[in-house]
């Protein structure tokens, strides 16, 4: 991994370069903040070790400028300082520094701190890869738009609300919120296993085709289950697996594939279910216009009332403004075909909503949402 050293003191720079090279890092040296900013702009450097006191641009100023600059990814910054005391630590952290090393440094301490930085960067890379996979899975459907971006934001809002409720306090913590934000975009990853003739069919599904379409929940589960079995400690895989298999389950038992009822449906899937349906209702599909927030709310609290966990409906009620802001923030671009997002079926000739026929009592075997 590349490390950028920003140090005007030749002695410290030489010692640092030697230590980092011995630890296997690829080292570039900048003699001042100006040079460093140019190099960081190249997006080649994710780890920066900078002296605090430098002429022109200090280490703290450099931190601020790097944070203000939009580079390819997060840059982990370690400040080298002879300064001690809380005041300086706070100043550095406020400026955007991630860690500190006191000069003259001990090489082993330097290594440990760099490894910590690499772990942070790896987490970011993991999140990007997971989201990229989800986008890739959705990319076969030309109508996807910003569905995944909105979905994960809605899920985060709902989970944040639940985390403040006594009932969920032990289950929904900061880590849970982060996990659902990370994994909810994978809910439809099983669609990669659905043939184009079904997934992209412009017309109404036959019962056989709909059975094939429903398989996406199981395919997604099996895909993630294979990964979870080899990495049983990876909590995000376990949650992603639950979401994939049960995000079409409904609280009243009318969902699929296992017709689970109530709290037998994993909490994460109950959250994703509402987020998914709300997004389907409020975005344009080839077979329907985008409903307003109020219209969507009326449907959810009308004919769909029993489909969702009342606690999650309450979370939705308490955060409607945030939902509307998210909707406004991630607006879909009109596709040349006229499609925006979601399913590609035409309207049900019998008047049932093909994206969400569960709205119509007595047709639980029809497709539900994107």
């Amino acid at each position, binding site marked *: 991994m590349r490390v950028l050293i920003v140090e005007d*003191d*030749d*002695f*410290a720079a*030489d*010692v640092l370069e*030697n*230590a980092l090279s*011995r630890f296997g890092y690829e080292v570039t040296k900048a003699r001042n903040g100006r040079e460093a900013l140019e190099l960081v702009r190249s997006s080649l450097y994710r780890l920066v070790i900078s*002296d605090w*006191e430098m*002429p022109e641009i200090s280490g703290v100023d450099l931190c601020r400028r790097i944070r203000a600059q939009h580079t390819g990814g997060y840059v982990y910054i370690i400040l080298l300082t*002879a300064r001690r005391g809380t005041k300086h630590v706070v100043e550095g952290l406020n400026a955007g520094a991630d860690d500190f090393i006191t*000069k*003259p*440094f*001990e*090489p082993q301490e330097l290594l440990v701190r760099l490894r910590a930085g690499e772990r942070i960067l790896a987490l970011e890379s993991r999140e990007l890869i997971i989201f990229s996979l989800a986008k890739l899975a959705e990319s076969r459907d030309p109508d996807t738009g910003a569905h995944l971006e909105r979905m994960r934001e809605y899920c985060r809002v709902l989970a944040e609300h639940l985390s403040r409720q006594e009932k969920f306090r032990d289950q929904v913590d900061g880590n849970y919120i982060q996990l659902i934000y990370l994994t909810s975009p994978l809910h439809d990853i099983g669609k990669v296993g659905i043939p184009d003739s079904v997934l992209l069919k412009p017309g109404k599904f036959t019962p056989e085709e709909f059975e094939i379409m429903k398989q996406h929940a199981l395919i997604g589960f099996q895909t993630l289950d294979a990964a979870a079995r080899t990495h049983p400690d990876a909590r995000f895989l376990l949650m992603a697996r639950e979401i994939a298999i049960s995000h079409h389950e409904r609280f009243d038992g009318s969902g699929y594939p296992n017709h689970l009822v109530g709290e037998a449906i994993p909490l994460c899937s109950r959250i994703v279910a509402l987020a998914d349906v709300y997004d389907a209702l409020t975005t344009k599909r080839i077979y329907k216009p985008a409903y307003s927030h109020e219209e969507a709310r009326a449907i959810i609290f009308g004919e769909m009332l029993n489909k969702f966990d009342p606690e999650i409906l309450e979370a939705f009620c308490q955060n409607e403004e945030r939902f509307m802001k998210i909707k406004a923030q991630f607006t879909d671009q009109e596709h040349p075909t006229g499609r925006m997002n979601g399913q590609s079926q035409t309207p049900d000739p019998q008047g049932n909503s093909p994206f969400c026929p569960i709205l119509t009592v007595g047709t639980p075997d029809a497709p539900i949402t994107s």
Partner: protein
Amino acid sequence: MQETFHNHWEGPKSSADTPAQTQQTEILDYNALVDRCLGNIELASRLVEKLQTCLPQEIESMEKALSQNDAAQLARIAHRLKGATASVSAQRLNRVVEAIEEYGKAGTLSDIPASLEQLHQEWEQFRIHSTTFLPS
């Protein structure tokens, strides 16, 4: 030639150093320097030589700054030397330049001549002691 240096490095400093050894260690803690260089003797000796070369010039620059009552310049040079002496593990030199930096930052130039005199003495001791670690 490298063997000459290596013969001087006897591993991490023992806690049973005599007072004389302790004093010498404070002039130049060569073991700490080599540890910091992860055993790279060539780098350690290069840093010692570099400090030997630059220190007289930096002292001269400080004296010039003092004669011009330029406290800020004095603080800048002392700060540079503070980093260099810390990296090389020259603790006694480091303490003197740190004091000069503080005086320079505070603008109390009257305290600096005595510190510069002390710096001359510490430099002389460093030059003599550190030479034992360099190739002949």
